[in-house]
């Protein structure tokens, strides 16, 4: 039963991921991503790790995707279709083709690894380190043993955010004959 559920959910997650790339309207890309996140969250539940499942929904579905939707609704209203449409037009660019080939190769490598029993090894290692759902253990690992890496990741995200803001601002002001400059500051 659990195995069947896992494969069904994995299929949903993969279809959702494919939908993100292939959907014509960005709105449906976001909704596909939502479906994918949900499937992942239920997979965490199947692994008896409810904390991770809840955090996945709180952070990704509840906050980040809502921000995506917000931005899409603000910026991109032209793609308002009354049907769900998919397109493969993006694969005309060589970069996208290379990306697709790399993704397929990675998926193939993963399949081969599963075939050779990599998952059993990983599951054995996880079983040795104790119960996976111990919230105190997770907190100790996150803020104790991996505390420095955790903080560094936070700093990295902050720096990225500041950099993105700086880049976006500079483009708008100095862009050659950009419409933003003519329109004046808001």
């Amino acid at each position, binding site marked *: 039963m659990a195995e069947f559920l896992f494969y069904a959910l994995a299929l949903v997650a993969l279809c959702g991921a494919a939908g993100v790339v292939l959907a014509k309207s960005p709105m449906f890309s976001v909704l596909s991503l939502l479906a994918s996140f949900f499937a992942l969250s239920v997979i965490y539940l199947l692994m008896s790790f409810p*904390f991770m499942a809840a*955090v996945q929904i709180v952070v990704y579905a*509840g906050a980040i995707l*809502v921000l995506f939707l917000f931005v899409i*609704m603000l910026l991109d209203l032209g793609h308002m279709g009354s049907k769900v449409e998919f397109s493969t037009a993006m694969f005309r660019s060589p970069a996208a083709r290379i990306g697709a080939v790399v993704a397929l190769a990675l998926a193939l490598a993963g399949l081969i690894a599963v075939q050779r029993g990599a998952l059993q090894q990983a599951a054995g290692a996880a079983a040795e380190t104790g119960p996976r759902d111990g919230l105190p253990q997770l907190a100790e690992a996150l803020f104790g043993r991996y505390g420095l890496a955790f903080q560094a990741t936070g700093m990295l995200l902050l720096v990225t955010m500041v950099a993105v803001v700086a880049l976006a601002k500079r483009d708008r002001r100095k862009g050659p004959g950009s419409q933003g400059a003519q329109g004046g500051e808001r």
Partner: protein
Amino acid sequence: MTEIVIWVVKVVVVWGALLTTAAIMSLAERKVSAWMQYRYGPNRVGPFGVLQPVADGIKFIMKEELVPAGANRLLFRIAPALSAAPAMLAVAVIPFGYTAVIAGHEITLSVADLDIGILYILALGGLGVYGVILGGWASNSKYSLLGGLRASAQMISYELTLMLSIMAVVLMAGSLDLRQIIEGQRAFLDWNIFYQPLAFVLFTIAMFAETNRHPFDFAECEPELVGGFHTEYSSMRFALFFLGEYCAMTVMAALNTTLFWGGPSVPFWPDAPWYVGVVAFIVKTSFFLFLFIWVRWTLPRLRFDQLMRLGWQALLPLALANVMVTGAVIALTAN
């Protein structure tokens, strides 16, 4: 076998109570507003108008269902369900009493006791906004779109305050399990309201914003947006949006009771029988449901920039400071 029966009975009772509360609230909203404005309110259907919700239900079902031209049919149709489902699921982890003993069976009074009960409610609360956003976007109407946009900005902003005010209580209880949180508040003087008054105020303000209620009802905002995200809806789908709103209000009121007011704890009667505890829980929750209506017919609506300033510049720093001080006190007194 008996376990399954007990479980089914609990599910039926809790969901029945939730939907009944929503129906009563739809009447209470009009009755209380009438009472505050020296009117009678609905008084034609049944004695004192108590059958008005039934009449409303029949009317909603009989109405024609319209889908606007150019609307995204799929999303337009599922948006009301997305808006109503999270609140109906969230009620499952609310403990409405301690342990009851009926015919020799010990029954914990909640549908499900999750170790991460609070996170479960927050996760579902975060999903409630999808119904509003998608309903607003799929309607192909500028009023609906603006309502959906405002709702998403508002709910993201106030969710932070809501979570941080809950975190202070979680720090006090040392658990994300709602049952642990009410067990820690059995005695009257252990109620979290006495230790976390600031968190209570912040939670209550954020509770209004999260359920899109007055004075933060920018998602609908009749004078500016006609009906906001549900302008284009009719018939049962329109009713489903309202059902979702009232269910979310009930869950939030019950959560407020659980987190700050001892849940089913009865003041000065620590060994009260379980049914007195359930009654205490219902009374406390009813007060907060009344507060929703009371505020709606008393306060004027904020402006949208005021709402954002309040959320980001006043409530969020206060909530952060509250969590820091609570954490520091707990860390210092732990040794």
